């Protein structure tokens, strides 16, 4: 019983992982189904023993071990796919930066992309622009007040 509970804890974690990944990848569904099968092997040793007999394995314990190995392989494939998706996003961003960082200039009259980018002011989003203008206005008002205060003191 204790062994079954101990084995079920990581399986439950993998089951949750597979369910969360289900929408993003086919591997999520595979992981979910394989985990349910592995859980049935853990909690119903008779099923594991019958499967072992069909697969000509030594015992039901081997089936449980092999199902864990298969599960981890599926998780690894899913992590690899996540890496690929991230890489594709990064590639798109860097490609866009490479392409938009340079305008077509006839060969032989080139500037480096860094120089071109440096000469172009970075556009601020409207919200940040308004905030920056408000801060500037506050600072300006503050300076005017200080200047008036200093003038008033001199008059006294």
């Amino acid at each position, binding site marked *: 019983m204790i062994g079954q509970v101990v084995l079920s804890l990581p399986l439950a974690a993998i089951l949750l992982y597979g369910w969360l990944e289900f929408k993003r990848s086919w591997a999520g569904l595979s992981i979910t189904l394989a985990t349910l099968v592995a859980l049935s092997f853990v909690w119903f040793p008779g099923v594991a023993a019958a499967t072992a007999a069909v697969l000509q394995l030594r015992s039901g314990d081997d089936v449980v071990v092999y199902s864990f190995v298969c599960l981890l392989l599926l998780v690894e494939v899913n992590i690899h*796919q996540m890496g690929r998706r991230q*890489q594709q996003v990064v590639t798109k961003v860097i*490609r866009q930066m490479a392409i938009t960082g340079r305008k077509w200039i006839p060969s032989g009259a080139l500037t480096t992309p860094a120089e071109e980018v440096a000469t172009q002011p970075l556009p601020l989003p409207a919200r940040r622009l308004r905030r920056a203008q408000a801060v500037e206005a506050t600072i300006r008002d503050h300076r005017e007040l200080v200047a008036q205060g200093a003038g008033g003191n001199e008059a006294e």
Partner: protein
Amino acid sequence: MAVASGRVRAPRAAVPVFETPPDPDTTRVMVAIPALNEERSIGDVIHDVKLHGFECVVIDDGSSDQTGAVAHRAGALVMRHLVPLGQGAALQTAIDWCVTNGADIIVTFDADGQHRAADIPRLLDALSHEEADFALGSRFLGTTVNVPRTRRLLLMVAIWFTRFTTGLHVSDTHNGLRAMTRRGASVIHLRQNSMAHASEILQQIAMSGLRWVEVPVTIEYNDYAAEKGQRSTGFIAILVDLLMARLQR
């Protein structure tokens, strides 16, 4: 000129690529050269290409040396990836840029000096005379100089694999010298950043149903190209990449 040609399916639009053979004075040919740490060879490559009258677009794939600066001084248009992404990613960047900037024909060319710019006009001739959208350079129809025996063996395996997976009866694969029309380039969307892109291009050519031809070209394996080229174990990485791409939803 001996060319091999093929088409997997009928093209979607049965219009000839060129109504008349392309006029070298008006047809805009851009040679796309992905480069990573090629400062020793990129200058000579660009000079060779420009000597034949073609525009050069170099994608500096995040080189840590002076590749971009050397290419710039040699008269190429240089775009730079901030970090190295791989030859496939650099090639797709070049194709995207060329398509949106008025290229009629895009030629892909390696930066390590193993290709000869003199072969480019033969690719262009094949495109126009065979009314094809892709002209693929073939070292096995042409000439190879100093090709290592292990490389030849691996290429044979790769050719068999490509024929099996794509249905294209090509005589060479993983040859970086190829030309494509604007229409052909618009169907190429590489997702393989690494060297597996060469197989992916052939897969996408097969999927597009557009006409392709093979043209004999010369590949010279000089010491520098051999030093910079793929390792034999890279074949396994390519297989894994292709498999993972198939598994991706």
